[in-house]
């Protein structure tokens, strides 16, 4: 077992993990605040990527330069994905705040099916090529056989976003309000926190991250179709739970553990059972730490 191979697998797993992390961050924030497994989150990711593709297509058609296309299309992706996130919350989840716990889950599954087929009908059932929005950096060329520049950007971006989010939640006023809402919604309301606005904000923020993830991943893979959100959603969900759902560093840690497991399982054992190892590890970790790697163990009140 050569060290270089190990190192390559490690870096590959790390970059895969950071892709998962980008999506898992939005997932875990939404969960933290309203305790909802948002199955439609993967679809927001997909819609973000599609919006970017459409806008980029128009702009390229109009003859804008590469950089302008990149900036405007990613902006559009973020705006519209956030708008979708906001609307979905208003239509499908907000009316169900007082409903039994599983009702919003079913509403989310329904929403996910709806959005997939909406894009399928309005756009296409085929795969579409996605332009690579991130250029190959020249200075990175000597190392690109180990880890590509796209992966590098994803890695760095995930780290930056995680730090920013942690800062936002720990030190800003809105972060405090978010934490208060997550802890006890009624109490937060009594203390003057506008709970509805905070929840909307969380959805917008989560969708923002999903859209960024969508554009980056699509650009790395070079193709999208209406179904890409499903797998991304499942992996993000797994990462978020693995790390301790509701915890921001937990989601990133969970995602990276998941990415590394998959990478090493493929590299040293077999990709046939890659997902089996990933899920088996998940089960094992949850047996010993029932609330995830960084999740706070809740003491049950009697």
């Amino acid at each position, binding site marked *: 077992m050569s060290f270089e191979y190990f190192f390559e697998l490690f870096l590959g797993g790390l970059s895969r993990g950071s892709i998962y992390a980008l999506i898992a961050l939005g997932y875990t924030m939404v969960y933290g605040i309203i305790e909802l497994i948002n199955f439609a989150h993967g679809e927001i990711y997909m819609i973000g990527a599609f*919006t970017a593709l459409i806008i980029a297509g128009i702009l390229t058609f109009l003859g804008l330069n590469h950089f302008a296309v990149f900036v405007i299309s990613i902006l559009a992706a973020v705006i519209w994905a956030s708008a979708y996130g906001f609307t979905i919350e208003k239509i499908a989840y907000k009316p169900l705040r007082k409903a039994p716990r*599983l009702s919003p889950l079913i*509403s989310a599954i*329904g929403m996910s099916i709806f959005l997939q087929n909406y894009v399928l009908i309005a*756009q296409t059932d085929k795969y579409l090529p996605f332009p690579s929005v991130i250029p190959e950096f020249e200075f990175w060329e000597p190392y690109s056989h180990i880890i590509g520049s796209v992966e590098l950007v994803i890695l760095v971006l995930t780290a930056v976003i995680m730090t920013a989010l942690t800062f936002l939640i720990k030190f800003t006023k809105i972060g405090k309000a978010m934490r208060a809402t997550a802890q006890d919604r009624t109490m937060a309301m009594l203390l003057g926190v506008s709970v509805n606005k905070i929840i909307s904000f969380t959805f917008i923020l989560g969708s923002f991250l999903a859209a960024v993830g969508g554009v980056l991943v699509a650009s790395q893979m070079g193709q999208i179709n209406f179904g890409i959100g499903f797998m991304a959603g499942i992996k993000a969900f797994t990462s978020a739970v693995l790390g301790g759902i509701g915890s921001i560093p937990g989601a990133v840690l969970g995602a990276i553990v998941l990415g590394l497991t998959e990478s090493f399982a493929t590299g040293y054992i077999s990709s*046939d059972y890659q*997902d089996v190892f990933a899920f088996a590890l*998940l089960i094992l970790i949850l047996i010993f730490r029932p609330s995830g790697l960084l999740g706070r163990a809740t003491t049950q009140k009697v």
Partner: protein
Amino acid sequence: MIKAEYLKKSVIAALWMVFLTFPIAVIKVNTIENTINWRWVNALFAGAAGFLFSYIWNYFQDKKNSPKNKSASSDRFVLLGNAAQTKSVKNAFYISVAVLAAVVPFAGPYQTTIFTTAMLYIILGLGLNIAVGMAGLLHLGYAAFYAVGAYTYALLHIHLGIGFWLALPIGGLVAAIFGIILGLPVLRLKGDYLAIVTLGFGEIVRIVLENWNEFSKGPSGISEIPGPWFFGMKLNSYQHIMYIYYVALILTILVIIFTNRLQSSRIGRALMAMREDEIASEAMGIDITKTKLTAFAFSAAIAGVAGVLFAAKTTFINPQSFTFMESAIILSIVVLGGMGSITGVIIAALVLILLPEYLRELGNYRMIIFGASMVLMMLFRPQGLISNVRKIYKI
């Protein structure tokens, strides 16, 4: 006065919808041939849909919240729930179901087949209801047990030549064992942690079936699985469809009776007590470990039976039939029906399984309608179609 307010809200909603659907529904870019197709008419539709939806929504919302109706409407749900529990309404429901069941075979083999499928999902829904509805254990990998049942029959048939009727209890038993195997490690887990582990378990079972060619023939699946034995007669397609329909009907009735009895039994009440409060129920002398495992085992056993029936019905199985989406649909049946309500599960299974079949002509549009109706049903009846009202025991 109120109307003007509705109008204003609805116009905003309409404009928002136009904005929202703008890139995806209006613009279609063909990056290969470099053409852009502007479909402005779609914006109009989006706006109109947004307007109508918002108007109707506001109207109902207002009606529900107006002080005059407040008490009446909140009572109405309970009344509906109660009504479903009162003997006469319940009897009327079961009689109409019985009439429907009797009429279906005369409507041709296609109707019979899809009703058989619907009954399969009634059985699955009732099975999952034991874990999710009664015991409160959120389960996202239920299709795994369904797969275990189906593969048990298929493999027993290939290797040992065992027939349907013998495989039926064996399938249930093997699935129950899998239920306990899953149940043991997850005893401490709750809520969404339990959900992801069950999801993982479901995926593991499917992936193993996909990869282990020597054992399960991998993705090419197992074909030529025989239908149930019928006094040594060889049945043609049409007779097979009819016969399997009646077998499914009898099994459904048995499962309904079983779950109904379970609900009022000692075990059933222990499950429900555990759902409400684990610690309190433990203090009352309920063995949580045993009760949880019982819930998993019963629930899995029913899925196993359904799996055997499924294998006999389609005569061909492969791992593709037991994906996560399958588990999600079964869970939707339970929640849409109103957790814990048998009547609700029956209605929800009929709606969710028959709807896509009858919308078949709409092609791609059928799934969008399916998704939208799942959301709408939850919005208008958040507690499920039939809210379960507890039985009252009078001394």
